[in-house]
């Protein structure tokens, strides 16, 4: 186990260095950057800015500097917002996290309940309907369903806000603030649940189908336990076990924001920040964000592997 962990950490480091190379060169080989695109700057000021931010140095030197800073916990300096990238992340990331954590909770909740029910009543009408619903949920273009719901609930019915996190210009504090945020969260959370629930329900349903056939479930029934107890205590526990490996894979989704949803609903999260920076080609921020996502993904996969092993010791690592 120890050698595995060591080897694994080394590999994580290598793959992240590979990712950093990919990210850095993808962005820095693009013609035009924030300084170039900013028409309000004079030629001298542009040269000065390049000097300050080290943009006129050879590309390899810039890469080495970028990497060295990252090891020190410095993800760069946003040119458009004139603030360190990590500071900006801290401002936006919790908004993203709020959205993600609530929708992840509901996604899992619905997926488990519906998954268990449909597995129990396999081939029933409910099962067929849910299967069609799952296919529908997996086939929705996320940006379209977002727009469509805004059109219906905000523009036509006027019962929900079209976007943002609080009402524009509102200075609400305390409970009033919480209520406003909840009101604004409703649509984006609904869309995120809808988008995620399909594949997860399928996953739980098939896990459950496998477990229900097992002998110990029959034993539990034979000794006269209530069907609810059999399903939710004996079967579900074992059907849930493989799912804990999914927790690691949720990591990028929880902290990395959701680019499309946040953009459509104008939610001040990290994905929205990314899209904003895209239009002005604020490369330090874009590179920092992409690298951040890569780190989350790699760490998430690592956590999943470890959980996989601890949940089922038969699995060799």
């Amino acid at each position, binding site marked *: 186990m120890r050698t595995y962990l060591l080897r694994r950490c080394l590999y994580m480091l290598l793959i992240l260095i590979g990712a950093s190379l990919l990210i850095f060169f993808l962005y820095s080989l693009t013609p035009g950057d924030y300084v170039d695109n900013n028409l309000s700057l004079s030629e001298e000021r542009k040269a000065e800015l390049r000097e300050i931010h080290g943009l006129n140095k050879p590309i390899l030197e810039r890469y080495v500097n970028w990497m060295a800073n990252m090891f020190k916990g410095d993800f760069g300096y946003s040119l458009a917002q004139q603030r360190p990238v990590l500071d900006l992340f801290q401002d936006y990331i919790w908004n993203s996290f709020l959205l993600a954590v609530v929708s992840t909770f509901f996604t899992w909740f619905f997926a488990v309940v519906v998954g268990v029910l449909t597995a129990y009543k396999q081939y029933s009408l409910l099962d067929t309907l849910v299967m069609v619903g799952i296919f*529908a949920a997996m086939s929705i273009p996320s940006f379209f369903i977002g727009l469509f719901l805004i059109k219906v609930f905000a523009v036509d019915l006027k019962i929900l806000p079209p976007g943002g996190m609080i009402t524009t210009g509102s200075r609400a504090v305390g409970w009033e603030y919480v209520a406003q945020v909840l009101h604004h969260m409703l649509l984006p959370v609904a869309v995120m649940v809808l988008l995620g629930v399909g594949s997860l329900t399928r996953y739980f349903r098939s896990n459950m189908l496998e477990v229900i056939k097992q002998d110990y479930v029959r034993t539990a029934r034979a000794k006269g336990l209530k069907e609810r107890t059999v399903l939710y205590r004996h079967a579900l526990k074992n059907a849930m076990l493989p799912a804990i490996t999914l927790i690691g894979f949720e990591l990028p989704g929880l902290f990395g924001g959701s680019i499309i949803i946040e953009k459509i609903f104008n939610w001040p999260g990290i994905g929205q920040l990314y899209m904003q920076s895209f239009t002005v080609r604020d490369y330090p921020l874009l590179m920092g964000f992409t690298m951040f996502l890569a780190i989350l993904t790699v760490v998430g996969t690592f956590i999943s592997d470890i959980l996989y092993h601890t949940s089922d010791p038969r699995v060799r690592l």
Partner: protein
Amino acid sequence: MSIPTTAGRPEKAIRALDVSDSLWRQSIRQLRKNKLAVAGFAFIAFMFLICFIGPLFSPYADGKINPANMHQPPSAKHWLGTDLLGRDVLTRLLQAGRISLTVGLASMALSMTIGTVLGIVSGYYRGVVDQIIMRVADLLFTIPGLPILFIMGALMSDWKIPTDYRLYLVMLMLSIIGWPGVARLVRSQMLTLREREYMQAADVLGLSDKRKLFRHLLPNVFPLLIVIATLSIGGAILSESALSFFGLGVMPPTPTWGNMIDAANNVIDFEKRPWLWIPPGLAIFLTVIAINIFGDGLRDVLDPKQNTSR
């Protein structure tokens, strides 16, 4: 060792051929019983037909700009109204469908080809080649697909790629993020298949590597490949539409379902002229549902081991 048997009893060889033929026929017969999958297939066929043939019968297929006729709501003359240049939305929707479906098909074909070849090679030869291919795949898995697509889309804009070429580059981009998944799957299949007896027989017969890989191993992953290929068309159509919606994929004047929904970015079009952006959204949705349902039906028939639904 097999040569004398087949040469001595030709009728047996013919019967063996019959059996292998009916495997496919059997699958089709089984698929036919799945009404949902048949409906899915029928809808896909309908979509292709109407998109590729429909515009030929439209009086507005030339896409002529007619400012006097702009922003008309749906009517008997223009079933889905007209856009800001006075073009018929229904005709444009079908023309966009041609592009979107083609992008889906082409990028699927490209990522399947790259993924299959690399997967077979890396699973069969293992060693250094395998290491290199799989590490590149790992690397591409590190960064989520959407940001990579966005970066590549922005690169196209910054390099001032002419809009006509963007279409082909979008196909290429989608296959860049698509192949690692295919390669991994094919590789894992290869690792088990290469240990089978018939591969030992192929070794003993001294067949060339090329023959072993493409005549003996490839046909055995074919059922699996067909399933992934079908499902990945849906994914590609969804990715293309998101990319084009954000102005980073295929750009006007080339219409795609994604960049038609771009009309929703204009507040007035969004609130007052839903005929501009709701039909393309529904078209994507229905097409992808049909593809997913059909793909799932295929999976039941062709790849019963991976059966997740029943």
